[in-house]
């Protein structure tokens, strides 16, 4: 029981720097990522939890879940249902190519103290808006920190051959730009991904990749990497499976009134056996 209490707290401390409202890990997990045939469906699970990929803490509540079709058009997830610990939904694959399923937000975050109490904006579950920021965040306050912050959580599935139309960056926030296609990953092969922060190479971005099945082994056995000058990381997979991948970025090149810029990125990628 003690472990259950301690673990979130420890993780909370680790990611406090990013001011993440959710200290836990969160993901959108596809049932399969490379499909053949016609008119196929893929099921997804979205959950907040620390046990990869065991949904045992909170369901993800989406404000802006988007499905990007291979031609770049937007569509919606179907059969969305939120359970106790996970949100499930389906995506219909009518056209061949790569689909991106994502949720992303960009905005300002602030934390400060008022009468010795910690305050933050946006609060848990709250969405950033310019108006909301102006209304809630004081210009001067004790221990005021204002951050330009972006979050993105996404995954990819491909019907037929992989395509790249949906992989174009928006140049907002922290994004993955594939060098190796995210639906073309094999355990014996090195994969290269590039990360951009607001369209520029995210040098120094810290990546952690964890293969599924942590509950059946004694360690997280994670892969760690730091993005180079070009924003690139090279990954050598630890076997086949679905990987939880988390990237954190931080610098001081923020838009005013922010003094820090942070980006967090999460994806789930499937690596197939050779």
């Amino acid at each position, binding site marked *: 029981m003690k472990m259950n209490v301690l673990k979130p707290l420890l993780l909370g401390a680790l990611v406090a720097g990013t001011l993440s409202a959710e200290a836990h890990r969160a993901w959108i997990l596809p049932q399969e990522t*490379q499909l*053949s045939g016609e008119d196929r469906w893929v099921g997804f699970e979205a959950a907040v939890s620390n046990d990869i990929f065991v949904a045992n803490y909170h369901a993800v509540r989406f404000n802006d879940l988007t499905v990007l079709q291979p031609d770049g058009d937007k569509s919606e997830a179907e059969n969305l249902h939120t359970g106790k610990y996970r949100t499930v939904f389906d995506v219909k694959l009518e056209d061949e190519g790569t689909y991106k399923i994502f949720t992303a937000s960009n905005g300002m975050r602030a934390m400060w103290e008022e009468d010795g109490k910690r305050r933050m904006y946006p609060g848990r579950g709250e969405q950033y808006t310019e108006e909301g920021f102006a209304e809630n965040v004081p210009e001067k306050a004790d221990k005021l920190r204002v951050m330009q912050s972006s979050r993105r959580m996404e995954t990819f599935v491909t019907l037929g051959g992989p395509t790249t139309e949906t992989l174009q960056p928006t140049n907002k926030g922290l994004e993955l730009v594939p060098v190796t296609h995210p639906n073309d990953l094999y355990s014996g092969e090195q994969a290269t991904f590039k990360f951009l922060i607001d369209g520029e190479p995210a040098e120094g971005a810290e990546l952690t990749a964890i293969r599924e099945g942590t509950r059946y082994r004694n360690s997280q056995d994670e892969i760690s990497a730091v993005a180079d000058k070009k924003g690139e990381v090279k990954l050598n997979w630890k076997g086949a499976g679905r990987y939880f991948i988390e990237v954190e970025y931080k610098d001081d090149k923020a838009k005013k009134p922010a003094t820090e810029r942070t980006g967090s990125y999460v994806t789930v990628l499937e690596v*197939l056996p050779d």
Partner: protein
Amino acid sequence: MKLITSGLMAVATFASFAQVQAADLSVSIEIPELDVAEYHKPYVAVWIEDDRNQVVSNLAVWYDVDMRNAEGEKWLKDMRQWWRRSGRSLEMPVDGVSGATYGPGAYELEFTPGKAPLADLKPGDYRLRVEAAREVGGRELINIPFSWPQSSEKKLEEQGSSELGAIELTIKP
């Protein structure tokens, strides 16, 4: 592609017949008898890759071609290597290449140089790849490297261990 015969005995008989015909490239594929509760005939892909791992020719793809609404294509990706290197960029079915699945037995495929699917086979080093995937079963991939053409008859053989039995590649000058 011509699917000549099935059954081990039949292959043996056929071998002498083939010599008369002077076939130039033939592949014999054995699908083993399996003692399993639920048996589905395997999907099988047979293709040739060059020394840069590029597919130069698809020789055969056996899958559930006749299922309604192309449902049978759902499992094509389980032949993972073939799917990645070739299948996912093909429009199925492929005339003269795709066909129905087969149960246990040995099957002989015969090809003539200069004609599809060997029309573009230039002299060089290649490998024959045979991949089988079975629903509720496993997957196996067999590779047989070979040089093309040959000055004398050459028989190359590999033995599968789970989803495939003996695979034989015979090249005649």
